[in-house]
């Protein structure tokens, strides 16, 4: 089998000592920030992005992706032990996980979460390995019109599946597209919106924008809602789940992994959505739904498997079509571009060692994570004692250094502060910055495909409805907007997120 051979070749790349090392570093950092509340994968990847410039590209991507799925492991630890999800994607895990901990069964709950994640990680890797080549095959049939529509659909789906007001998220997308058009226009060479400032000719830096909107804004948000210190639980004695736990968990793990893998591929999907849906599904399917909320092992197994699977499969749109489906993946796209690799269907041909190495590294990473997490759980728990007042100045300094080190330009650090302020204002107005960043990354590509589509059709916009695939994508996009605009369904969506 071709895929198996490729996966094996990838495994050889992933098992090179330097790549294992960075995979371990990524997994460790991911677990660390997963445990620490107030700092998530988004902020961490943004902070480390400039540094990865100094690493070989394969090692850099392996490390960054390790942070993303590693954070899913770490997040569950605090959710179960202290009812404080380190990551938003572990929110639902806390419901039953913490109840189990209060019944003295924290050990088995942690073990089920870790083993479920391991299984999900393996399955998601296989999904990636088999699905990506097939999708790339399909993408060869795409012309500029299809690509443009695919991006429109991706942006729309990203906001429909996320929380919050839809008109505002749409506006944030348009704002991101506008910001992305600052700088020299790629095809005409005219400077746009540069106000004669030479530094703006290359456009706004992706890193200062991403770090301002996320890292700096997040520090403000965390300080504002800062709560009292946490009580750290005592020793965890027994880790091994009982036979009954196994019996209840394995179907939940299977379903969670499947749901997570599927939802992760969708644009806008990702770990958060997957964990919510997996929990709700388990509850609905269970013969004793009343056990949920009072320490049901399935309520830990399903969402933890789902968020890990989804974190991994959300790489599919990036690796096959070059379209990042959520902000974390947008940062990964930024990392690839920093190394001169344009994400898209050509990566598998031009850089097979990178493509398959990255996918195979997820197998390695998941094994490392279980080792890091289970025996060393005590160390991670102790980290909870690090108070945020010592953490946030360090986050700010790392962010500043990261931005500065890109081009040794102090001006970019000042831009970081500016975007931090913008982020704070936007958050106060209930405008989530995630869609903006996504649109900022996709914007220039989108314009380029639009322009090419117009050249193909000699300026006739009907091309988007005349070509069947493009028309189909457009229908889905319009359908999504209509569906969420209907009052009934809107209520359903709000409820789904409240649950």
């Amino acid at each position, binding site marked *: 089998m071709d895929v198996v051979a490729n996966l094996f070749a990838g495994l050889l790349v992933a098992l090179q000592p330097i790549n294992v090392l960075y995979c371990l570093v990524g997994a460790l950092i991911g677990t660390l920030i997963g445990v620490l509340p107030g700092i998530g994968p988004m902020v961490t990847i943004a902070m480390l992005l400039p*540094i990865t410039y*100094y690493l070989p590209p394969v090692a850099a991507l392996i490390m960054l992706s390790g942070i993303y799925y590693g954070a899913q492991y770490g997040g569950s630890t605090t959710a179960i032990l202290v009812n404080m999800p380190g990551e938003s994607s572990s929110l639902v895990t806390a419901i039953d996980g913490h109840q189990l901990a209060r019944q003295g069964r924290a050990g088995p709950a942690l073990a089920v979460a870790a083993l479920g994640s391991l299984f999900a990680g393996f399955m998601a890797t296989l999904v990636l390995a088999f699905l990506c080549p097939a999708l790339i095959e399909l993408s060869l049939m795409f012309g500029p019109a299809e690509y443009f529509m695919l991006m429109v659909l991706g942006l729309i789906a990203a906001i429909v599946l996320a929380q919050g*007001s839809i*008109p*505002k998220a*749409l*506006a944030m997308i*348009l*704002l991101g*597209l*506008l910001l992305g*058009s600052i700088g020299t*226009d790629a095809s*005409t060479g*005219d400077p*746009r*919106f540069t106000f004669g400032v030479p530094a703006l000719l290359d456009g706004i830096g992706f890193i200062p924008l991403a770090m301002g909107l996320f890292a*700096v804004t997040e*520090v*403000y948000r965390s*300080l*504002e809602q800062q709560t009292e210190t946490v009580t750290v639980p005592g020793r965890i004695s027994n880790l091994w789940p009982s036979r009954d736990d196994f019996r209840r968990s394995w179907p939940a793990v299977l379903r969670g992994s499947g749901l997570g893998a599927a939802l992760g591929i969708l644009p806008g999907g990702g770990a958060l959505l997957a964990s919510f849906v997996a929990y709700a599904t388990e509850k609905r399917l269970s013969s004793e739904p009343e056990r949920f909320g009072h320490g049901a092992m399935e309520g830990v197994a399903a969402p933890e498997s789902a968020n890990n699977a989804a974190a991994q499969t959300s790489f599919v749109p990036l690796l096959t079509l070059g379209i990042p489906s959520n902000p974390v993946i947008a940062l990964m796209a930024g990392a690839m571009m920093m190394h001169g690799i344009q994400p898209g269907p050509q990566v598998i041909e031009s850089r097979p060692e990178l493509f398959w190495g990255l996918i195979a590294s997820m197998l390695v990473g998941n094994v490392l994570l279980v080792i890091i997490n289970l025996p060393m759980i005590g160390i991670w728990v102790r980290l909870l004692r690090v108070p*945020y*007042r*010592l953490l*946030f*100045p*360090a986050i*700010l*300094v*790392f*962010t*500043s*250094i990261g931005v*500065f*080190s890109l081009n*040794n330009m*102090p*001006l*970019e*650090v*000042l831009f*970081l*502060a500016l975007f*931090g*302020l913008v982020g*704070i204002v936007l958050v*106060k*107005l*209930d*405008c989530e910055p995630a869609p903006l960043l996504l649109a900022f990354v996709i914007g220039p590509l989108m*314009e380029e495909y*639009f*322009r090419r589509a*117009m*050249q193909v059709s*000699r*300026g*006739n*916009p009907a091309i988007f409805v005349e070509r069947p695939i493009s028309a189909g994508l457009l229908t889905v996009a319009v359908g999504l907007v209509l569906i969420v605009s209907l009052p009934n369904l809107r209520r359903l969506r709000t409820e789904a997120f409240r649950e």
Partner: protein
Amino acid sequence: MIRVRSPRDVAAGLLFCAVAAAAIWLSGDLEYGSTRHMGAGFFPRWIAILLLALGAFIALRGLAVEGPRIERIDWRLALPILASVVVFGITVLPLGLLLAVALSIVAASFAGRHYHRAEIALLAIGMALFCAALFVWGLSLPIDLLPPWLRI
């Protein structure tokens, strides 16, 4: 008198409208071209027009539908956070990394509470040394550690 029912939405809508209007005005200098040969101004102009419409919709809806008030920005938190970044940006070239990190930490610490004074000093010194070790010695980033004018 119009009653603002959802100040947060109205403010957001007006903000979007303002940005869009500025973009439409600025894109007037750019070549629009035609659908067949799009100029540099074509795409941003249309995006800005869409944004203007959407901003107006959000603002008008805010007049009709009840919504939350605008929470104030807590400047006692926001100012030190932003100052920490700005201080780093201004000082890193003239004063070098060690001092820039230490000053940036001190600036940030004004946003925190329950500090002991020694804690801030320790954090500033510790972070300065840690950053020097990690970024300059470990990753060999080309950043001066000490003020360049000390090195004659």
